């Protein structure tokens, strides 16, 4: 059972919810997939025991073998290789690692090199198996790190993914393959607008979804109305409280500042389980009918 915690708008409380949910379960895996700005470790203070570097393919060009035929520059749609009369230039930041240049080079002058763009750390915090990805500063592409992190998923455990914000590549890579996506939002015009965008993405990927309203009470009722109109289950709302906000600022998870919330998170989890199972049954039925 893989549950992704996502949101269109940043700062709505994804990490806070992911951490609190993880702490409310007996045991689980937590993957912090917000590799550009991973924060879950600030709350869980895990003991890190393993490190894996994430490498992407980078062409290594042997200029002595190069005949300057330009085949590599022509196949590269990312313009990462430029060939002049007697020189070849590689712009590693533009390279997506498709391997096209290696394939086309008639002189076999390009070898398959590797470049590290980030690291995956594994460890434990209480009963939580913790995994976080960290993108190196200055690197463009977060998706290869997130893709690699998914290999650490243990299917027989409850898995919680703290997804990157937004609605584009990193967020999609984060939630892809999940059994359920919980969208965290706040009851404001910005929150609503970005909830709609993120909801569209989740539906496009055909993953069942639900909503959690965080900082309830600071805005209006439009998020609730939207969920009703669109038939999106509203699974939990957490009122804004200065105590939770201050605890958050010091790296204290909401369920530790307010232990009574643990029961709310447990019932949230039960709600998610039953919705995800309903979808699974429906898919099985659909498959049988076909």
């Amino acid at each position, binding site marked *: 059972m893989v549950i992704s915690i996502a949101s*269109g*708008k*940043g*700062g*709505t409380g994804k*990490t806070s919810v992911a951490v609190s949910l993880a702490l409310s379960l007996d045991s689980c895996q937590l993957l912090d997939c917000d590799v*550009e*700005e991973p*924060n879950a470790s*600030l709350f869980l203070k895990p003991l890190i025991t393993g490190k894996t570097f994430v490498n992407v*393919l980078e062409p290594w060009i042997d200029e002595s073998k190069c005949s300057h035929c330009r085949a590599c520059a022509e*196949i590269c*749609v*990312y313009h990462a290789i430029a060939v002049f009369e007697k020189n070849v230039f590689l712009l590693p930041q533009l390279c*997506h*690692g*498709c*391997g*096209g240049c290696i*394939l*086309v080079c008639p002189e076999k002058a390009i070898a398959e090199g590797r470049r590290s763009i980030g690291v995956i750390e594994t460890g434990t915090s209480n009963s939580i198996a913790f995994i976080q990805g960290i*993108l190196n*500063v*200055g*690197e*463009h*592409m*977060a998706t290869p790190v997130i893709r690699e992190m998914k290999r650490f998923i243990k299917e027989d455990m409850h898995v919680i993914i703290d997804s*990157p*914000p*937004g*609605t*584009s*590549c*990193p*967020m*999609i890579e984060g939630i*892809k393959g999940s059994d359920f996506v919980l969208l965290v939002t706040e009851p*404001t*015009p*910005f929150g609503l*607008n*970005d909830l709609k*965008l*993120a909801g*569209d*993405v989740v539906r*496009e*990927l055909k993953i069942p979804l639900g909503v959690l309203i965080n900082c309830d009470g*600071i*805005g*209006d009722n439009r998020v609730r109305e939207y969920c009703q109109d669109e038939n999106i289950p509203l699974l939990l709302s957490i009122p804004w409280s200065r105590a939770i*906000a*201050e605890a*958050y*600022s*010091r*790296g204290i998870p909401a369920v530790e500042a307010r232990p009574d919330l643990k029961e709310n998170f447990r019932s949230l989890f039960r709600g998610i389980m039953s919705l995800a199972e309903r979808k699974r049954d429906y898919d099985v039925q659909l498959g049988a009918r076909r």
Partner: protein
Amino acid sequence: MKQLTVISGKGGTGKTTVTAAFAHLAINPVIADCDVDAADLHLLLSPKLIKQEPFYGTRLASIDIERCSRCGICEEICRFRAIHGLQVDNTSCEGCEVCAYICPEKAISLKERLSGYWFVSDTKEGPMVHAKLGIAAENSGKLVSLVRQAAKDLAETEKKDIILIDGPPGIGCPVIASIGGVDLVLAVTEPTLSGLHDLKRILEVTNHFHIPAMVCVNKYDINPENTRTIESYCEKNGIPIAGRIPYDPAVTKAMMNVLSVAEYPCGQVTEEVKNTWRKVEEYLFRYSCDAQKIQ
């Protein structure tokens, strides 16, 4: 003409709130919303659409089933694991064309993919360039570059003095596209451990690309001790503090009334945002005036 990008590393620290207020305070600006994933600035500036243009992202591989001999070479060669049998996974394909090159039957071609739209609009504060990324479309960095180029062209033809860029969260591709070549980055942060952690990373990014930065601490009174930690970190690293903005629920009220905090009465918040803008403006324009005098 100057360019300022407002970023934060961590999301939800108040980038858009600050940018909208700056749009009101700036004289003669062009506004660019480069958070194309989850654009919100239009909710405060109520733009009137002038022009809409399609955005084509990376192309998408498409398999001609009639020609395909099911040899499986494409699936094997694809580094993005985007081909499964006869299916191309739209969200994984990066349009590299390697499959089309390798296919012995020439059964694969690359198709244009409509990945969103970008717009030029009129607002009460000045012209605005913004965009909407298609559902589950990729390549937001390329769309950011498009928005910035359009804003630059507009600023040049209409003789505008400054481009105000609302940036995305994070440190990756769209952020790098939003800050490349700007005159100043304003990093809006909050006094939380996450805010501080993410601020450090985003300042490493601006440093990496040699872009001058200033910092503004939003909701500073939520944790005054962390605010002091942030400020002393900035001091140590030679990064000027542009402002401290207190927490006030009136900020959300301003948003609901479709007004920036520079227009809606938010007490101390309004005052502090104005002071922040003064410092940013001084940095951007005083140095250039000095340079002009020397010339």
